[in-house]
C-alpha cells in the first residue's frame, strides 16, 4: 500500500502516485487526503478472523430467535440479544446471487475480472459476501453459461493467511 503514495516534502503531505485527474477548463488545486485508520474489531470479530486463520468459518447463534449469522456478530440485529454461542459452519453453501466485475476502480483488492457473490453457507441464516472463482473468467458469455450450472460452492483457502476476510481466497463450484 505504501508505494502508492509519495510524500511531498515541501508541503508535508501525501499524494497518490498512480492516480491522475483529467484536465479541467480552469485552474485546479490538487490535494490528496490520505488518512490512516485502525479499526477495533473487538472480541467477536477478532475471534472470527482468528478462526479464518485456522481455516474455520465461525458464526454466532442468537439465543432468542436461534438464527446463526456469519460473519459472527456480537448481537442479533433483530432481537438485539447478545450472540454468545459460537458455531463452526460448514464450508459449503449455495449461491444466492453473483455478479461478474469487469471494470477497474480505485481501491479494488483484485484485478478484474472476478465474481462477487452472496453465499449462504449450510446452517447459516444469512448469506456471506465473497468471491466466487476457480475457473476461467475471461469470457463473460462463458461465465454466464458456467454459472447457470453452478449452485453449490465450497471455500478455497489462501496459501498465506493473515487472520482477515481474504484468508478465504474464494468459493469454488462443487
Amino acid at each position: 500500500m505504501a508505494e502508492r503514495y509519495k510524500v511531498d516534502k515541501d508541503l508535508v503531505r501525501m499524494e497518490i502516485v498512480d492516480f491522475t485527474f483529467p484536465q479541467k477548463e480552469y485552474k485546479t488545486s490538487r490535494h490528496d487526503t490520505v488518512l490512516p485508520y485502525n479499526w477495533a474489531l473487538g472480541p467477536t470479530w477478532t475471534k472470527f478472523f482468528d478462526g479464518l486463520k485456522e481455516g474455520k468459518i465461525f458464526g454466532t447463534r442468537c439465543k432468542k430467535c436461534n438464527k446463526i449469522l456469519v460473519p459472527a456478530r456480537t448481537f442479533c440485529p433483530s432481537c438485539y440479544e447478545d450472540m454468545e454461542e459460537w458455531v463452526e459452519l460448514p464450508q459449503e453453501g449455495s449461491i444466492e446471487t453473483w455478479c461478474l466485475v469487469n471494470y477497474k476502480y480505485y481501491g479494488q483488492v483484485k484485478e478484474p475480472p472476478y465474481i462477487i457473490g452472496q453465499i449462504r453457507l449450510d446452517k447459516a441464516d444469512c448469506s456471506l459476501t465473497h468471491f466466487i472463482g476457480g475457473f476461467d473468467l475471461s469470457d463473460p458469455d462463458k461465465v454466464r453459461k458456467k454459472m447457470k450450472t453452478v449452485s453449490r460452492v465450497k471455500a478455497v483457502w489462501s496459501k498465506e493467511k493473515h487472520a482477515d476476510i481474504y484468508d478465504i481466497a474464494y468459493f469454488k463450484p462443487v
Partner: protein
Amino acid sequence: MGRAVAVIGTGQTKHGRRDDLSYPDLVREAVKKAFEDAGITPKDVDGVVYGSMPSMMEGVAYNHFYFADALRTVGKPLFRTETCGSTGQSVAHTAIHWVASGMADIVLVVASEKEHEGDAQATMMTILEPFLMVTIGGAPVAFSLQSREWMGYYHIDEDKAREAASIVSVDSHDGGLNNPLAHIRVKLTKEDVSKAPIITYPVRLYDVCPVSDGACAVIFASEEKAKKICKKPAWVKGIGFRGEEYFIGDSSKAVWQSTIEASKEAYKEAGITNPLKELDVAEVYNPFSYQELMFLECLGLCPPGEAPDYVIKGTFSPGGELPCDPSGGVLCCNPIGAAGLIRVAEAALQVTGKAGEHQVEGAKLALSHAMGGAMQFNGITILGSEL
C-alpha cells in the same frame, strides 16, 4: 402528519461535468433559481437543510460549512441530513417534518454533488467497512448482485429481463433528450443498450448512471404561507422512509422490504389504494436499469416478478399508463446527493405543469423515490396538485 406542507419553488443547475465553476458557485446556481421560482428572498426563510454524499466525495469534511454563504444560511439554523443515495429524499423529509411540526414556516432544502472534484467510485469504496464485506463498495457490484437476486428469486428469463432493462434505458434517455438540464442527452436504441460493453454482468454501460456534477434546491412552506406566496404549490400528500440491516446478506433484496414499507406508508398517508391507476407520473430512482424493474414491483406499481412484462407492454413508457422518469431519471443524471431531491423537484414540476418539454400532460399526482446505502434505505415523497 401535522400541518400541510407544499413545495413553493425549485431550482436545478445544468447537470453534467461542471469544471466551469467552483463547488460553492454550483450550489449557488441552484439556490438562486429556487428563490426566483418561489418569488421570495432569503429573509423569508426560517431554516436551511443540506445533504450530500459522504464528504470524501469532494474532500471537504463539512461541505455545508464551505457552502454557508451559497446556502444563504447566515443568521439561520442549518441542518445536515444524509443517507447516501437517498439523501435527497431525507433532506426533503427533514424540511417537511420541520414545517409540518409548526416549528418553521419556510425551509430551504439543498443537495448537491460535484463528483468530478474527486473519484466518486473511490469514495463509494469507503461507504462500507473494508474488513468484512469484501470490496463490494463499487456501486455497480452491489446493485448487480441485487438485480440478479431478484431475477433468480422470481425465475425471470435472462433475455426477457435484458429486453425490459433496455426499454427502461431507452425511455430514460429519450426523457433526457427532452430535459435541457439533464447530463446525458443521447438517442439510444435497444440494441445500443443490449450490446454495450459489460460493466458488471448483466449490467452494461447504458444500464448505468453517469458521474455528474449538479445541485438542486427546493423550498417548502406551510399551508398558510404557500397559499399567500405561491399561485400553484405542489402539496406534499405523503412521505415514507425505511432503513434495513447493515449486512447485505441478512435480508432479501429481491423482495426489498424498505422500498415496500416506505411506499406503503406514503400511499396510506396520501390515501392511495391503487398506485398504478391513481399516480400520473413517477420519478423512480433508477441509477441502474435492472434495478428500476425491481423498484416498479416493490413500489407496488405491478405484481411481484412481473415488472419485465409490464415494461415490455409499455405501461411505464411515455404515453403509457404510468410514465416513469420523463426527466431522464438518474440514468441521465446522477449528482448522487442531489439525485433524490431532483426526483422531488421533478415531481413538483410535473404536478404544477412546469416540466416543459418533458411534461406529462395533466399530471396531478406524482411519486418521487430514492434509495441509498449498500441496499439499506428507501425514501418516498408523493406530491399532488390539490391540497
